[in-house]
């Protein structure tokens, strides 16, 4: 009988892409109010926190090709350009607004809840 500590767990490899996105999120979190003109807002701490939490549960291969940018509304924006797809995910504190174009098809969504599960699902669909 397995004891609790013997239960095999999925070990995530966290490599270069993971490290870069984590560092980038921390760097963007330091942008001050007005960083791109008087109407630009600092990135919402909730967006940074949720993104970092999700990042810890994503496999390295799903992060390849993604770049993190700031959005002057105070959001994080995850951008993807690949050989057969492009995608964008706006991460507000509460919602994920996203699109991806893949194999000639476009998928759009204007309001999924910002959960680790939903973010993972989008990354898997873009890479899958």
């Amino acid at each position, binding site marked *: 009988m397995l004891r609790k500590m013997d239960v095999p767990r999925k070990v995530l490899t966290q490599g270069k892409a993971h490290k870069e996105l984590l560092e980038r999120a921390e760097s963007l979190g330091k942008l001050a109010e007005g*960083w791109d*003109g008087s109407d630009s807002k600092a990135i919402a701490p909730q967006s940074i926190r949720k993104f970092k939490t999700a990042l810890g549960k994503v496999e390295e291969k799903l992060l390849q090709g993604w770049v993190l*940018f*700031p*959005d002057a509304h105070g959001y994080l924006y995850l951008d993807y350009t690949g050989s057969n797809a492009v995608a*964008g995910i*706006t991460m507000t504190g509460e919602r994920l*607004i996203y699109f991806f174009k893949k194999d000639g098809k476009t998928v759009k*969504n204007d309001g999924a809840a910002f959960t680790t599960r939903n973010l993972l699902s989008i990354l898997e669909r873009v890479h899958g």
Partner: protein
Amino acid sequence: MAEHLPKIVGDEERVARVIFSPSYIYNGRVAPTAFRWDVLPSGDAEDYISVLRGDASELDTETRHFKARVEGDERYGYALLGVGHIREIGIDNHEIAETKVDVLSLPSKHHPNHAGIVVDIAKERVTALTPVSSEIMIIQKELALQCSEIVRF
């Protein structure tokens, strides 16, 4: 220098989107979010994305004097886009209903070569007050992909 520019922005012209914040560039990629509609200090919401017309030497001279958005911050440069390609964005995206993207001449006192990228989705003009949507994000992404060159200040 730019007083001679025709009132209609030609398809063969290139326009420059000035990028102040270095955060909008990463590994040579331009952020789609760099193409944004500003709320001016007066409170007015722009209904266009500001760009400048002109050739490289004119733009270099003009932008040399631009100040950083935040005092002491680094200024990045500008990205160049072909006007004809910008206008094709609305035509190529059949999955976005009734979308039109155009470039209009909007000269100002200080910048006679000022122009604006205007976007209409379902016959509504996008402004700085329009909430973020997947359709706007697709257009911003297309604009970022159209950047043929990034020039550092």
